[in-house]
């Protein structure tokens, strides 16, 4: 299983995916960190069969809500937060689908964000959700490792 945390440390809650990946590493689960730009993301999961992408999202839910989407389906349009390059995580997934480069199993863990202010800290609710996501993913990774 490959875990990829996406986001930008300088944009408030957008750091959630990166923090989750870092926490997973502390828990002994290898995790990659990626800005979320489409080509880079496709490259990062190249050759992997079972991938979890973690990213901050804005769907209108309560900040800190955890969403899990199955990458074999189109992601909700609200996920498509415009990134600086116009091609972010949602676009990367659709691009991979079009190119036949989706991993056999892809799950997207979305952490509902409250704000993406430049240079701001991660909101407490999001920090908590990040911890929860990391623990749940680590539990799955460990059970896979044992089996």
């Amino acid at each position, binding site marked *: 299983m490959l875990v990829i945390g996406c986001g930008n440390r300088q944009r408030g809650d957008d750091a959630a995916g990166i923090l989750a990946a870092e926490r997973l590493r502390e828990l002994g689960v290898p995790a990659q960190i990626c800005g979320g730009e489409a080509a880079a993301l496709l*490259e990062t999961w190249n050759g992997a069969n079972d991938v979890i992408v973690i990213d901050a999202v804005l769907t209108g839910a309560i900040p800190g809500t955890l969403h899990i989407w199955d990458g074999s389906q189109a992601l909700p349009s609200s996920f498509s937060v415009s990134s*600086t390059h116009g*091609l972010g995580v949602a676009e990367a997934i659709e*691009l991979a689908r*079009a190119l036949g480069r989706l991993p056999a199993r892809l799950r997207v863990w979305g952490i509902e964000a409250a704000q993406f202010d430049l240079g701001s800290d991660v909101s407490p609710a999001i920090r908590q959700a990040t911890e929860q996501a990391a623990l749940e993913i680590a539990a799955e990774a460990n059970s896979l490792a044992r089996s």
Partner: protein
Amino acid sequence: MNGRGGRTIRVDTLARVEGEGSLYIKMAGDRVADVKLKIFEPPRLFEAFLRGRHCTEAPDITARICGICPVAYQMSAVHAVERALGIHIDPAVRLLRRLFYCGEWIESHALHIYMLHAPDFLAYEDAIAMARDHRPIVERALRLKKIGNRIVQLLGGREIHPLSATIGGFYKTPTKQTLLELRTDLEWALEASLETVRWTASLQFPNFEQDYEFVALRHPDEYPLNEGRLVSNRGLDIDVAEYEDHFLELHVKHSNALHSVVRGRSSYLVGPLARFNLNFERLPDVARKAAIEAGLRPPIKNLFRSIVVRAVELVFACSEALRAIGEYEPPPAPRIEASSRTGVGQAITEAPRGILYHRYALDEKGLILAAKIVPPTSQNLKRIEDDLREYAAQVAAWPIEEATWKCEQAVRCYDPCISCATHFLKLVVQPDDASRG
């Protein structure tokens, strides 16, 4: 709703551009009453951040202005500071910097040609929709971009906001062997770029020619990247240090980005078309031949054809990168150190989107007293508005959705980097309240 009376083209969020902004065009019958490219990306204030910092920090601070063209910021910064300090770099460092810049051109041009611009000509909403029908083409784009990224990573330590460029050279220079490892990829990239020229030349372009003042660097015998005199097709031929004597930045109410004009004249165009038209004979043979075969000869005055010119520049960048890795021998030292002194230094380099001007005034300790940065997109903003004034009139009779789509496409020809100009762009078409259709 498509009457010939007053109406307004509005695009609230222009897609497939770098940054945030919007477009507003007000029509009065077939006449364009007003065009505003509104840049609401917040001001960046980098020039103020730089004051009081040591000049060696300028390349790394200014690289943060853009995630697409950080190398351009680093290159203009190092050259300007070196000019202030009187540093003359080693020829091997100069060659490495050209290679570094080629990496950025390859990734930026590949991204724009294929992922941002091509969908406009093939009538797809975006690159994802295009990928469904043109898989090998999008795969080619991704591989080209990756090769550009690899060059930047190899020389700069990482792909985005690279770290190794510094005043006087690099913190670390690669071995010859390391660079040679790029060769196979670059040979493929050169072929892919030639294919890109052929492919883009086969697209259909609107008939839209304008009388531009093209402004670009010109070097005695190289296609311009890091140095040269600043020239135009209207007789401008100056040392880059005279830039501010000839160009003026203006504040406009509707935009967070400044507009630039040539003093005593008006808007001007920077970027691939300007470079190509002013430096055609300096292209390496392989690129010039590809251009001619694609039917491109200067002057190209149709901005929509800039996608083909960008492809020709992709050929140049791959060919130049191959030359650089072939000729490279590591310098005696990665960088030349120089003592601080009071001085002013200016530099212009050719970012993928056009000329990028930096000026630094330094005190005796090397601290920055004043900084000025003029990015390529802010220099093009007024020209974009001028183009839209003409182009909107041509498409005025079309259904509103189509007219809007066409105007957006016109803006995308510039590959605007609104992040650099401040930072975003947004375009709108809707009936004007005052309209009587």
